[in-house]
Every structure is written in C-alpha cells, then in structure tokens.
C-alpha cells in the first residue's frame, strides 16, 4: 500500500523518539553507581514532596480554572446577543498562542510586588503558579464548555419554559446533563496541562517547596547533575501521565471548540442579566489586564537597549528557525499519518485508524521533558548534546505539535476521504493532482491553522530549549528566562512583548497565507 509505507516510517520514527529515550532512562536506572535509595521515592522526602506538590498545584489550578469557567461559559451562552461577544471570545483564544513565559511576565506585571494589584509579599510560589495557570486555563475551559450550551436544542429551552421550569430545574434537566458529558474530559485535560506545565513553575516556583516533577527533572539534570534522580522523576511523571491519559480516554471525549451565535430563549430577570455581565467582565479583565499591563510596562521599558542587543536578534532567528521547522516536520508527519488513517477508516477499519491517530498523540502520555531527559541521558555518553540542540529541539517540538495537527486536520481529512475518495479513484485523480484540485482547496484552512498553531507553540516553548539550549542557541523564551534570572525585569518585559507580537504576527500571517481568507464550501 502506497500510503502504509510513509505512515509506517512516521510511526517507526515516533516509536524511536519515544521508546529509545525511555530505554535509555530505564537502562540508566539499573546501572551500578546509582544509589538504590534514589530509586525508592517512598523513602525519599524530596521526591515525595515534589510528587505531592505536582498533584496539589495541578488539582487546585484545575478547580480554580474550570469551576469559574462553568459560570463564565454559561453567562456567555445566555448572552448570545451581547455586543462584542465575538471579540471577547477571541480574547479568550489568545492564551492559546501566548507563550507561557510571556504569560508569566504578564501576570507578574499585574500581581507582582511592583504591579498594579500587588498580591501579598511575594508572587513566587503556589500563588503565582495558580494565577498563571488560571490565566491560561480559564479561557480554554470557557471555550471548551461553551459549545455544550450551544448544543442544547432550542426546543428543549422552549419545552422547559412551557413546563414552567425554574432556573434550578432548567439547570438540572436541560443544562447539567449536557455539561456533564464534557466536564470530565475538560477537567482531566486542564489537570494534565497543569501537571506537565514547565515554564510557569520554573519561573514562578519558589525553591524545593514549590517544585513540580517537570521542573525537578530539569534541575536534576542541569543544576544538580544527578541523572539517577532525573530518571526516577521522569518515570514518576510518566506513570502519572499514563494514569491521567487513560482516565481521559476512558471517561470522555473532548468537545469540539465551535462557537456559534445562537442563544437560548429564556426570559431573565435584570439581576441575572447584570450577574452574567459581571461574570463576563471579571473574566475578561482577568485575561486582558495582565496583557495590557505588560504592554504598558514594556512600552515604558528600555526598548532601544533591548532591540540593539545582538543576543535578541540571535534568539529571534533561532525562535523562527525552531518554530517553522518544527511546524513543517509536524504537519508533514501528521499529514502522512492522517492520510493513512483516513483510508483505514474508509475501508471499514476504524479501530486501527483510531490507533494510528492515537499513536500520533503519544506526547500526551510521554511528556516532552521526559523524552528530552531520555535523549540527554542516551546521547550524552556518545556526543556533546549541546552541539545537537537544533535537531533535538525541533524533533521534540514537532512531536509536541503532532496532537494539534491531528486535532485540527483529522476531521476534515477523514470527511474529505469519505466523500471524495471513490470519485478520485474513478477520475484517476492521484498524487499532485489530487492534492492540487481536491486536498489543497478543501483542507488549506485547517492546514493553515495547524501550521500556525504548531509554529507559535514551538516558538514559545521553554521546556526542551531550557534543557539543551545555551547562550549561543537561545530562543526568545529562553532569553526571557535568562533575563529574569539576572533580575533584568524591564528587559525581560520588553523581550516578552516582542515575543508576543512575533507569535501573534506569525500566527496571523501563516493562518492567512496558508488558510486563505474565506471558507471553502463542502
């Protein structure tokens, strides 16, 4: 089969990228010279504390993000005719493309000791971590939950009204059953994102009391030079992620993010209307204020000094190189996998097709930092890993982008295949012609979104580059971290603004250039 071979090669490379580092970790854990005590985490107070903090901060972050998100999503759902609704929901999509380290700067500029709303003595520690995680995940949860309300048939609202249901009864019989479908998936996704969050904890975590597994792995390798501990931490992280991913798969699907304009018809009191508007305003301020504050701080900062620094331009070039290369590799690999799985689904093998798609999302289970650690351990005895920084960082970032490619492109590719494959066969439309006349016009929009998304994710990544990067090979995200470490906060703020503008510009440009301006009717 012409499609099986390229897809098989992609799967083999994926397996190698994931399994080889894992094997390296496992092998290392059995080598003489490493204390057995390092491997028994239940005897080790440090490991126990890191594990406890990882779960605790992820749990708190999830609850603080998702519970208010339910109220905000409901308020948006009930206010379908709200002026600027689309713009506000657009603002809620912004954290998806804001690099974590930029978000940290934004949060610090509002809640830090010199910020607009200083929060206690120090932002560093659990408070800062929670604020940043909620900044990212509240808008995400709102956008994931809102379509659930919009999936409620208009007739159900009318029926509820006709039967005289109160607000509570409407919630119980109409809203909650639909919300309940998506809630476990959203909770677990946010939990997983917070559990594997690296940049936020690295920059806002405060010493051993506020360290997660991901950051502890990094510290073990880069500062403590203790690969054995890194191995144990990586294995613990892997176990946790497998557990959460299995639960996610078992418990439920994730809703499609599709924001419609329709709104339920329900007469509401003035009080409820103002309550909804208050909720929307509070959430908008929570998301918008840090970005605005950072913008003002940066404009007031040493812009000239930062942009005339040669390190900035070197970092900017590296950022673009890594982002665009990772996106190209990721989309190419994703395309080959999806083309194969669409064919499998079309010829009556949906289970195998699903497994192929799942293999592409392996990074959900094996965190990039664990892969990075494994690679570090595996390669360090043969080569100088810091000489291999670009291929390694690009490969791992491409791997991290693959689930997004599969999610953006998968449904459209499967639909395309199901509708037009037989027609293509009858017309002998193959290869380049098939791509030119069928796939490009119909798939360019999700393709543009996938490329834009993976590019900015890779551009903003701090995890892998922090492990392998150096001053020479730094990206903008790493440069911000280095500036923060040197207490050059004004410089870091300016660099963060530049990275944010670069990400937004690249995202808009790629989406427009590749995706085109309009929709193609199916």
């Amino acid at each position: 089969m012409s499609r099986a071979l390229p897809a098989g090669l992609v799967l083999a490379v994926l397996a190698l990228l994931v399994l080889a580092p894992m094997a390296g970790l496992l092998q290392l854990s059995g080598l003489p010279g490493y204390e057995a005590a390092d491997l028994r985490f239940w005897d080790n107070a440090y490991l126990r504390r890191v594990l406890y903090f990882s779960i605790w901060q992820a749990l708190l972050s999830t609850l603080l993000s998702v519970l208010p998100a339910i109220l905000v999503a409901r308020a948006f759902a009930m206010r379908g005719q709200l002026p600027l609704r689309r713009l506000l929901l657009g603002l809620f999509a912004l954290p998806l493309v804001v690099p974590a380290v930029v978000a940290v700067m934004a949060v610090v500029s509002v809640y830090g000791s010199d910020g607009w709303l200083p929060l206690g003595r120090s932002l560093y520690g659990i408070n800062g971590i929670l604020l940043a995680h909620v900044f990212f995940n509240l808008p995400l949860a709102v956008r994931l939950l809102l379509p659930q309300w919009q999936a409620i048939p208009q007739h159900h609202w009318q029926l509820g009204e006709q039967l005289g249901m109160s607000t509570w009864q409407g919630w119980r019989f109409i809203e909650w059953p639909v919300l309940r479908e998506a809630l476990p998936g959203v909770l677990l996704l946010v939990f997983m994102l917070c559990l594997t969050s690296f940049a936020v904890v690295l920059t806002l975590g405060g010493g051993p009391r506020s360290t997660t597994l991901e950051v502890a792995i990094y510290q073990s390798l880069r500062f403590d030079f203790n690969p054995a501990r890194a191995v144990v931490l990586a294995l613990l992280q892997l176990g946790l992620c497998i557990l959460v991913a299995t639960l996610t798969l078992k418990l439920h699907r994730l809703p499609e993010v599709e924001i419609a304009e329709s709104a339920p018809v329900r007469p509401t009191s003035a009080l409820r209307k103002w309550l909804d508007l208050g909720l929307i305003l509070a959430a908008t301020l929570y998301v918008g204020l840090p970005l605005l504050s950072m913008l003002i701080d940066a404009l007031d900062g040493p812009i000239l000094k930062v942009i005339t620094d040669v390190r900035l331009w070197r970092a900017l070039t590296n950022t673009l190189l890594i982002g665009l290369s990772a996106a190209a590799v990721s989309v190419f690999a994703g395309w080959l996998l999806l083309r194969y799985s669409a064919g499998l689904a079309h010829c009556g093998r949906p289970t195998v097709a699903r497994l192929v798609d799942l293999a592409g999302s392996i990074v959900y289970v094996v965190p990039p930092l664990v892969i990075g650690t494994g690679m570090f351990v595996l390669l360090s005895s043969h080569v100088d890993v810091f000489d291999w920084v670009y291929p390694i960082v690009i490969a791992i970032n491409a791997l991290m982008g693959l689930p997004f490619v599969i999610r953006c492109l998968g449904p459209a590719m499967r639909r395309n295949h199901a509708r037009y494959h037989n027609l293509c066969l009858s017309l002998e439309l193959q290869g380049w012609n098939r791509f030119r006349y069928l796939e490009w016009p119909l798939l360019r929009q999700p393709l543009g979104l996938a490329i834009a998304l993976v590019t900015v994710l890779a551009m903003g990544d701090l995890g892998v580059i922090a492990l392998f990067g150096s001053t020479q090979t730094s990206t903008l995200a790493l440069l911000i971290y280095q500036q923060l470490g040197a207490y050059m906060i004004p410089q870091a703020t300016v660099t963060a603004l530049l990275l944010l503008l670069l990400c937004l510009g690249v995202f808009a440009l790629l989406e427009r250039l590749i995706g085109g301006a309009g929709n193609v009717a199916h």
Partner: protein
Amino acid sequence: MLRIEQLEFAYSSAETARMRFDLSIADGEVLSLIGPSGSGKSTLLNLIAGFLDSSEGSILLDDRPIQDLAVAQRPVSFVFQQHNLFPHLDLYTNVALGVDPSLRLQPTQVEAVRAALARLGLDGLERRKPGELSGGQRQRVALARVLVRRRKILLLDEAFAALGPAQRMELIELVKELVREHDMVALLVSHQPADALLASARTAFICEGRVAALGSTAQLLEQGDPPELREYLGSK
C-alpha cells in the same frame, strides 16, 4: 373555542414583513395549517404558545384573553418535530415533568402518568430512554405528556413529518381521539395535504403571513383556490 383576532407580528420593521392572523377553532376540533415554507405557520403556533410576542391583536380561549400570559401559564401543549424529550431521562420522568418540573408527585399524579403512558401504548417501557425508542414511540411519549398536562390547546408543528406514512396515519388518528376525548383545540402544521385530509374537517392555507383560505379540507385541496394554493399543491 379558540379565537385569534387580528393577531400581528413582524420579524423586521418592513411593512411587507408584517403578519396578521384571524382564525377560530371549535372545541374538539383539529384544524390543519398548510402553506409554503416561511409563510408563517410556525410563527402562528409560536405566537399562541408565547415563544413570540405579538404586537397587536388578541388570542382568546373561551373569550378569555391569553396573549399576555407567560409561556408556562398559557393553556398550551406543544409537540415539535423533534427534541420533545430529554434524552438523558427515562420515559416516565419525561412525562412526569409535564405534571410538576420538581418531580414531587402525589400518588394520584404518579398514577396519572402511568395511565397516560398506558393510554399511548407505552406501558412496560417507563424506564427506557428516548434513544431506545422508534421515532413514532417518541412522539407517543410527547403525546402522553400532553395528556398529563391537561391543557386545552394542542399545537403540533410538523410533529409527525419525520415518520413513515403508516405511523403518521396512526398518530394522527390518535391525536383526533385525544382531542375529542378531552375536548381540546388542536392546530396541526403539516406539509402533507394527505395529513390535513386525514386529520381535520377544516384546513387553513397560510400564505405570506395571512390566512389566505379557510374551509373544508377536501374542497380546499380539490379546488385549489386561491392561485397560491394551486401553486403550493403543484396543480397549476
């Protein structure tokens, strides 16, 4: 008797978009409403149910105006083409919601729910979910809820359009029986002239937001007058 007098409504401010209805339906009668898509049939039902607010005119039930009542207070039961039932609730609960949305039912009310399900041929299926039923059975459940609600006006908006001919005929007969038994007033919107013939002695042809013709169903469909009706029926 349900009387609709000079009932006006407009989706936009344009004068041409203004709809105006005059109709009366006797107790125990099923009146069919036919007409092209967008002519105002469903709008009329939504005005009676209170989902839309009229700008002028009145809706009188036994000479009492009901147009100012809130939706839940109106003596109306509505059966839609789909989504009449909550998919996560069993049949019993779906019907019981029609008695009291808090589901705190007296023993006599519980008995009434069971009796309604039995009357509609659904006994033994109380614990089934709507997804486990056929389309016809689902509409029967919706009719069982109509029975327990004991509201005088029954509105059916293409309620049987998704069903096959045999099931459609069966359910229309059932509606006629229920309307007679409970002395209700029913309006049935349908795109099938055959449904109108079977369901009602009288039919109203709605066109461009007006009752363009009203009379004996058989005569109306045979004569095809006015010309818009002829065009609608495809008998030019």
